[in-house]
């Protein structure tokens, strides 16, 4: 971004053009004579380049003051009133708030500065006004020159920065603890044979005396005088400068300073305007003297740039969003195409599968139902042989027991019980239980069988085993134990459970027991019993 700096002294106007933070052009005009016309002609070619006027004038006055430390709003009012009182006849005035006093009420320190003679600026400002040059501000070189020592890391309690200005003048700016306190511009008017250094020594000594009269120094304080000078002027200055207890001189090589600040190429003379403008580019300072009316073109230009940038940003955002939407559309199209392909592929496979389903002369549903019926009701249907085989193995270890009858059936309900008419026993024991009518014996098998009963799926097999157990003499106890053990052994077979339904001799208190013992009793007899056995088919 291009900007121009109009460095105004009492005799010269130097126009420095900066681009991208570097000084790229320099024009110098005389303040008197045809200088103004030349300046205006030059300015016509730069009518859209914002301008900063940097003043380095003898008419700049500086006053140090203190105001009570009050609220910011009150302080501004106080300062504005005082500024108006001190500098009545000029619109170009500025108040810079410094720090606070170290003792007492700790008042705020304020530096008032103004260009006491507005006429020195008027012709230049009129030219700028005529050409509608955007004036960004009017700045005092003295005010911001204090930044130079800080940028060079030269920080002293009391420093006097001495710079040369275009048009043969020297500015002395007193800086105390980084705060500007005073500045004065003196024309270089050498007497016959007087070297520049002697003149500087006289002027700086005079300045020290002035400051000392204002009680800026204590007995031990020393003023560090920093003179910005080009090497070619050094021989004319250095020999005349003698250090005292109160004053010490430091010559700052302007080429070294330029190198440290990044100013290329370095200035060709001791004049400090290029260094100060470069310093301004590095560390811009606020407007000091220009009123809002003077800055209207620059303000509107900045606003126009801001608005245009905002427009570009909004447009860029819109374009970015549009690009995002476009990419999403492309992605959506791609996904849609992929979905269509998937759908076609799936439908194709589905059609192939449907076409390939077997029929075997009957419908697929009929086949499914047929197989479902077979798998659910017939596959693994139990058989009597499978049921009896484990039981016969158990019976083999109970030789006293003899199986007479088996009534077996498949069932969906484990409580179902097949009917079994009792067998007649030839050698019944002499002692037996008398059953009440309807107890024990079961109805004929045919009585419970009906063609309308649901087909039993065969999950359960239920059987009633009727048998006899040999009783030796009157040893019913072992016969009862034998039958109980038989039931327990059957229960040990996986999937089987067995309970004694009718005991060889029912010993319950509710039953009648009849004994017919004669003169001679048989050595053995056969006692009848029944055992109910349930087998559940293991889950598949």
């Amino acid at each position, binding site marked *: 971004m291009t900007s121009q700096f109009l460095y105004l002294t009492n005799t010269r106007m130097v126009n420095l053009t900066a681009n991208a933070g570097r000084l790229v052009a320099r024009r110098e005009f005389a303040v008197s004579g045809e200088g103004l016309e030349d300046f205006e002609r030059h300015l016509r070619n730069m009518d859209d380049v914002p301008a900063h006027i940097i003043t380095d004038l003898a008419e700049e006055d500086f006053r140090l003051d203190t105001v009570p430390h009050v609220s910011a709003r009150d302080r501004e009012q106080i300062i504005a009133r005082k500024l108006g009182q001190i500098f009545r006849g000029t619109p170009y005035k500025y108040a810079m708030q410094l720090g606070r006093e170290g003792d007492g009420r700790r008042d705020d320190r304020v530096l008032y500065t103004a260009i006491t003679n507005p006429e020195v600026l008027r012709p230049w400002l009129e030219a700028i006004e005529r050409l509608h040059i955007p004036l960004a501000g009017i700045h005092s070189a003295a005010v911001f020159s204090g930044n130079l020592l800080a940028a060079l890391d030269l920080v002293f309690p009391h420093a006097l920065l001495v710079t040369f200005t275009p048009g043969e003048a020297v500015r002395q700016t007193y800086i105390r603890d980084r705060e500007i306190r005073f500045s004065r511009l003196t024309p270089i008017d050498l007497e016959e044979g007087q070297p520049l250094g002697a003149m500087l020594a006289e002027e700086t000594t005079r300045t020290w005396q002035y400051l000392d009269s204002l009680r800026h120094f204590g007995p031990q304080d020393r003023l560090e005088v920093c003179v910005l000078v080009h090497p070619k002027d050094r021989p004319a200055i250095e020999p005349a400068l003698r250090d005292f207890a109160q004053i010490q001189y430091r010559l700052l090589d302007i080429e070294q300073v330029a190198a440290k600040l990044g100013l290329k190429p370095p200035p060709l003379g001791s004049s400090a305007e290029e260094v100060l403008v470069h310093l301004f580019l590095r560390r811009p300072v606020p407007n000091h003297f220009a009123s809002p009316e003077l800055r209207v073109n620059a303000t509107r230009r900045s606003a126009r740039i801001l608005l245009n940038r905002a427009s570009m940003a909004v447009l860029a955002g*819109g374009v970015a969003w549009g690009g995002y939407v476009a990419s999403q559309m492309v992605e959506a199209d791609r996904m849609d195409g992929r979905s269509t392909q998937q759908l076609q592929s799936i439908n194709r496979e*589905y059609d192939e599968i449907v076409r390939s389903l*077997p029929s075997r002369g009957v419908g697929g549903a009929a086949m499914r139902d047929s197989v479902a019926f077979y798998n659910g009701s017939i596959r693994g249907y139990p058989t009597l042989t499978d049921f009896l085989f484990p039981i016969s193995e158990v019976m083999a270890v109970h030789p006293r027991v003899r199986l007479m009858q088996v*009534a077996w059936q498949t069932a969906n309900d484990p409580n179902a019980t097949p009917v079994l008419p009792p067998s007649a026993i030839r050698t019944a024991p002499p002692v037996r239980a008398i059953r009440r009518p309807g107890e024990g014996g079961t109805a004929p098998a045919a009585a419970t069988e009906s063609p309308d009963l649901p087909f039993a799926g065969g999950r359960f097999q239920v059987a009633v085993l009727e048998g006899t157990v040999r009783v030796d003499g009157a040893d019913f106890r072992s016969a009862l134990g034998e039958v109980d053990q038989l039931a327990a052994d059957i229960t040990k077979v996986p999937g089987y459970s067995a309970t004694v339904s009718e005991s060889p001799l029912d010993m319950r208190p509710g039953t009648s027991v009849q004994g017919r013992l004669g003169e001679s009793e048989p050595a053995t007899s056969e006692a009848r019993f029944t055992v109910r056995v349930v087998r559940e088919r293991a889950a598949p």
Partner: protein
Amino acid sequence: MSTVFSAEGFRALRTSWILLALAVLAAVAVGVGGHWITERDKREGGASDKRVREARTRLDGARRERDNLAESAEVFRALVERGILQDERRLDLVELVAELRRRHGLLSLDYDIAPQRPLPGSTFGSVDVLSSRVKLRARALHEGDLLAFIEELAHSPRGLYPVDRCVMKRIADDAPTTLRPRVEAECSAEWITLKEKKGAGRAG
């Protein structure tokens, strides 16, 4: 601020303000239009995904049916070969029973075949499960013969004869040396056949 936001300021910056307004309008139009398009794409994408999911579910179902049918086909083929899907051929059963009796040396065999009726408790949409109740009463010298007879009948390769009841008992014998039946059995079985219902669809 008054320099910019005054009537004169607006006049001076008219072009920039108009440009900004147009840019905002264009951006809003692009934003709203883009949002509408992305929402539409999202909806259409969702519908497309749903269609693919449904098709995939249908395909999975068809695959399962194919696999089930492939497995079922083998069972079904065996059932067809056993004549389950034919009409009841009673002569076949008469011949089968006679053959089994001869083979297992049964001393006597009585049987009754009841009229065919739908098998109670077996209802399917595409086939009728029909059954004839068969009652058998057989006598033999040894219970092994009876059990073998019943076992072979139940596992006959021609037809389904699940035996669901049996009572087997010893016959009292005063003269154990004579050739007389020693064991008697009364059993019941269902003779099951399947018949496709009229109008039962293939896809079911």
